[in-house]
């Protein structure tokens, strides 16, 4: 397998036509892909291309777009708030994505074990992510991280006082958003949990009989079997983190405040497009993000053939 990888194409999809009598399966593929192809043409591709066109225009939503060439892209370089949003987003990605994966995996392992009331526990751990972007979340987060909030009340019990607001302090506000989004780790956990159920028990039992420790069983059997889903979670976690919007939007009331400390990239994009009515600039920002994410995704896929093991290539 390792020898073969060197000649494999960059995107790790099954390409060897071992099945199906050595030829492509065009007709069945077309049949299975019809809904997606129609949707792509009807609902997805047009709007994407239109936004690409808009990125070369000045467009205020209320009048017709006006061609300005590369101006929007050029303006980004000298826009201090653009760079601020890049900084906030990168910090967030680097801190949040690994934390989310580790926490989700740990809880998923815990909830995959033999335990009573498992269904109840799973539902309860999943509960916070159900709140989603509810308008109630902003109020709840102030109750927890406000100057008179829960965190400070607990700190007060152990004698730490006058801590001040967490959501209102620019040095700490991003931390509260990270906590908020981490709080909703449920969906990542569910995918891990579903993956854990896919690992054949016979393998684990055989290893146990051979005397392999729990930790060893996890790293040499469970984790490798799950790599397609680990890959999915890490990649989607990264893409979503780059596009993180809702938490900061709800908590800061859309401003990215205090003083731009939670000004995520997409939050700034949204403000530019819908509040300042500069949809051309917002579209340009979106396409820059698409390019960056395309590179990131490309790297992920390229690396995946060294560590992701699919059931269809064994």
């Amino acid at each position, binding site marked *: 397998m390792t020898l073969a990888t060197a000649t494999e194409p960059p995107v790790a999809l099954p390409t060897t036509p071992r099945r199906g009598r050595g030829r492509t399966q065009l007709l069945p593929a077309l049949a299975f892909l*019809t809904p997606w192809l129609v949707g792509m043409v009807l609902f997805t591709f047009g709007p994407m291309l239109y936004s690409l066109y808009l990125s070369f225009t000045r467009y205020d939503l209320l009048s017709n777009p006006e061609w300005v060439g590369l101006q929007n892209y050029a303006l980004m370089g000298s826009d201090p708030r653009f760079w601020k949003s890049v900084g906030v987003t990168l910090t967030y990605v680097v801190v949040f994505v690994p934390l989310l994966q580790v926490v989700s995996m740990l809880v998923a392992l815990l909830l995959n074990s033999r335990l009573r009331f498992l269904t109840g526990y799973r539902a309860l751990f999943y509960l916070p992510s159900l709140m989603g972007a509810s308008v109630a979340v902003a109020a709840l987060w102030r109750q927890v991280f406000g100057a008179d909030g829960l965190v400070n009340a607990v700190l007060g019990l152990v004698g730490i006082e006058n801590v001040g607001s967490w959501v209102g302090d620019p040095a700490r506000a991003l931390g509260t958003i990270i906590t908020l989004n981490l709080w909703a780790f449920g969906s990542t956990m569910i995918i891990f949990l579903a993956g854990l159920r896919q690992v054949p028990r016979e393998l684990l039992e055989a290893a146990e009989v051979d005397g392999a420790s729990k930790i060893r069983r996890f790293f040499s059997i469970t984790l490798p079997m799950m790599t397609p889903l680990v890959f999915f979670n890490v990649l989607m976690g990264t893409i979503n983190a780059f596009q993180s919007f809702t938490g900061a939007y709800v908590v800061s009331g859309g401003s990215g405040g*205090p003083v731009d400390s939670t000004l995520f990239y997409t939050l700034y994009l949204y403000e530019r497009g819908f509040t300042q009515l500069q949809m051309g600039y917002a579209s340009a920002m979106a396409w820059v993000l698409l390019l960056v994410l395309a590179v990131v995704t490309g790297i992920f896929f390229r690396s995946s053939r060294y560590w992701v093991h699919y059931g269809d290539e064994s």
Partner: protein
Amino acid sequence: MTKPRSRRLLAGAALVLGVALTSTACLNQGPAASSDGQGEVGGTIQVAWWGGESRNAKTNAVIEQFNEDFPEVTTETQSADYAQYFNRLNVQASSRSLPCVVQMQDRQVNDYVKRQTLQPLDDMVASGAIDTSKIPPAVLDGGRGSDGKLYFIPYGIAWDALMVNTTLAEEAGVGAPPESWDWDQFVSYVSQAKDRLPDGTYAVAAGGEEQNAFYAWAVGQGIEVFNAEGQLGFTKEQLKEYWSLWLDLQEQGIALPPDMSAEEPPGADQGYLATGQLMVGVLPGNSLYVSQQTLDGRDGGQLQAARYPDGPAGIGNILVASGFGISSNCDNVPTSAAFIDFFTNDVDAQVAFAADNGAPTNTDVLDALTAEDSELPDLKRDELEQYRAISEDNPPKVNYPPGFNAVFQQAFTRNYNEVAFGRLTLDQAVDSFFNETNASLG
């Protein structure tokens, strides 16, 4: 799932997409057809406004009365919270599918005037389709765009005011504020109160980040906030002077610290004044009643509206007008005009609306709501009396240029707080504010 079928589907899909995008490309501005609003009242109109459930209920009550008067009209309603309302409005505007009757405020009307999204209403007023005879001319001017034409008929007026928790003020030994005062008196009033206020309570809001307080300060000195070109009409020095005043108050612990101010929830009924943690707040005068209601739940004292400090040029309390206009893409102008006329002038309907979005502009309605037999709560009536006093004092009008709503407000708060949090110097923040706003205004 056979091949011919998928081909047909694809062909159909391509066709639909083609049609959709070509017709989009052909969407044309089309200069707003000027109409005098005369014609048959009937058919369907859509009415859109911002607000939560209590305003929705009151607005729906008015619409019911309108439909009783005009049974041949079908009225479709759209409402959402302020920020969401404008988001949706802009998306609808992008495909020229705005509701016929849209609610506007003088703070952003020029964004829509500039792009010809609204119809001028002057001819409708001239023809009598919309009656404005009961609205004081200075108040009606709130509905004018920067081209001088009338784009919405103000029905409710908010006004900038200070709000004082007199119970806290008594405790602090400074008593109720005087009938009128200047900025020095105001500063010493809150400074004196500071030491005797309970822990966790502040004498005054963080006024440096409040654009409304800045207008009051500037207008009182005779400064025009926006000049005729729609750019900033004040100087960097003037802004520095204003911000320094508040930075000092914050530094001395008199004004609310910036982190607490940043986490203050939106809405007058949720703010620190309403929770009893603030002695003097900077709020629209028409939020006295809702703030007091929250305060009562906490036994937090009694609120009283106060006048902004006067400057050498006089009064600083500014009026903010809200009202209904008609979108350019509306195809039922006579009915829309009839609706606006009804909403603004029908005394019964407006009494039912109970001044929910500012003081009524129609003087008959104002009289009815403040009359002895009015069912309004006393505090709500006090609000309206304060409005009457201010509106009779010939308050100045701020002409908000296009781009104001998008940039000014946020940039003002953010750049002030950059200094308050010690992340920028005062000079840097003022420069940054001027750069940001002048690039987007006009």
